[in-house]
């Protein structure tokens, strides 16, 4: 027993050291990112099985939806589509006007953006953080740090890329911070995820800051990660404590990040919007 007793602890120490080295190397460097992208393909069948119950129930639900319900949904969607279209026409003209005005005041023009459509995979990849998987990966040109936008606002950012899947950390994760600007008052601050479910918190607003319940804030574009102007959340509760120089502000994300099914992955392609783009827009 005695000589054998030494053996496992020797192996234990070896493996412990190896794990710690791995942890440090993977969190501080990009060394393994390419290798893991390829290896993560092994997760595909596991995630396929894990998502099957949800997909099954959704399929049943869709099948049982009756004709009238579908028709109603269809008319609502059609109406929404029409409204969006008319707004979009205005948007092009407005953007062109905006660019012209920016030129006049000599401001730098915005970067042009490209969007990649992705679906959320119905799995919950990790128990200890708020991540979701999307069905796009390195094979589709996804990269770490890409901003992810849902139909109603910012969802999060890409944190790890596999060959066919990437994981997205939601803005409601407490390790995430996002630079924002209030639409009404123009105040800039940083909003963090909070560990209490689907909420955000803004810890750095001074007690005298001009914020009210219901105020909308959008991405400010500072930090170069999230593109400017996408809605992030609205203020839900404001508490001011006499002893603290800061307000304690609880906010609600405009997009319910955990309920979204389809998202856009936004990438800056580095090009400034040019004069020819401007012509195209105004035509």
């Amino acid at each position, binding site marked *: 027993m005695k000589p054998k007793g030494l053996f496992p602890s020797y192996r234990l120490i070896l493996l412990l050291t190896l794990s710690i080295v791995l942890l440090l190397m993977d969190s501080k460097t990009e060394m393994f990112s390419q290798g893991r992208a390829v290896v993560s393909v092994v997760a595909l069948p596991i995630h396929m*099985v894990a998502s099957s119950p949800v997909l099954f129930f959704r399929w049943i639900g869709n099948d049982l939806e009756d004709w009238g319900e579908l028709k109603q949904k269809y008319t609502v969607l059609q109406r929404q589509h029409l409204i969006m279209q008319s707004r979009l026409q205005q948007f092009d003209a407005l953007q062109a006007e905006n660019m012209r005005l920016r030129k006049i005041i000599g401001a730098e023009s915005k970067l042009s953006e490209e969007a990649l459509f992705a679906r959320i995979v119905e799995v*919950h990849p990790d128990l200890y953080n708020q991540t979701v998987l999307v069905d796009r990966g390195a094979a589709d040109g996804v990269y770490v740090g890409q901003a992810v936008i849902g139909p109603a606002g910012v969802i999060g950012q890409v944190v790890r890329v596999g060959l066919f899947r990437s994981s997205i950390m939601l803005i409601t994760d407490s390790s995430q911070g996002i630079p924002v600007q209030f639409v009404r008052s123009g105040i800039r601050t940083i909003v963090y995820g909070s560990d209490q479910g689907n909420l955000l918190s803004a810890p750095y607003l001074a007690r005298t800051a001009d914020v009210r319940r219901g105020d909308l804030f959008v991405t400010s574009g500072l930090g170069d990660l999230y593109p400017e102007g996408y809605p992030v959340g609205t203020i839900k509760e404001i508490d001011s404590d006499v002893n603290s120089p800061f307000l304690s502000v609880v906010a609600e994300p405009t997009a319910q990040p955990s309920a979204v099914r389809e998202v856009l992955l936004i990438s800056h392609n580095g090009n400034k919007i040019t004069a020819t783009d401007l012509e195209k827009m105004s035509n």
Partner: protein
Amino acid sequence: MISNSSRSKKWWVIPITLLIAFCFFAVPTGGSLNSYNPDWISLVLIYWCFAVPKKIGLLPAWLIGLFLDVVSFGTLGRYALSKLVLVFFADRLALRVRMFPVWQQSFIVLILLIGETVLLMFIGIIIGDIDFSSNRWIAVLIAAFLWPVIYIILRRVRQWARLP
């Protein structure tokens, strides 16, 4: 354990049960309920450590954890470390725990899982990639309550596979 009697023993059920646990690990339970999902892989690992002590071994435990790191898109080495330590202690306790009634085993399982969660929390704080919601402690309690169910199901599997 000797090679000529191992022909009828179906050792492959251990990886199969672990693979099923991997699927359960990733099942979405919907919105904020996700954080209550117990760690099925730890439960299955603990069962096999108790039932067939020293059979899983430290290197396989480490590899299982590393595989989980890849599957969960997390930092490499996080689960590798936690599963390694979990199996090490579960193996040490196995011979004592086997004599206990199931509900007392639940208690030991609870302690093991609390240990693993504290370790993961600690790693998360150092690496800075963890969103530790207090729901995880409830998930650990749920796991301990699930232990008798896991025990009964896996004991059936073990008897069917004719493992010792």
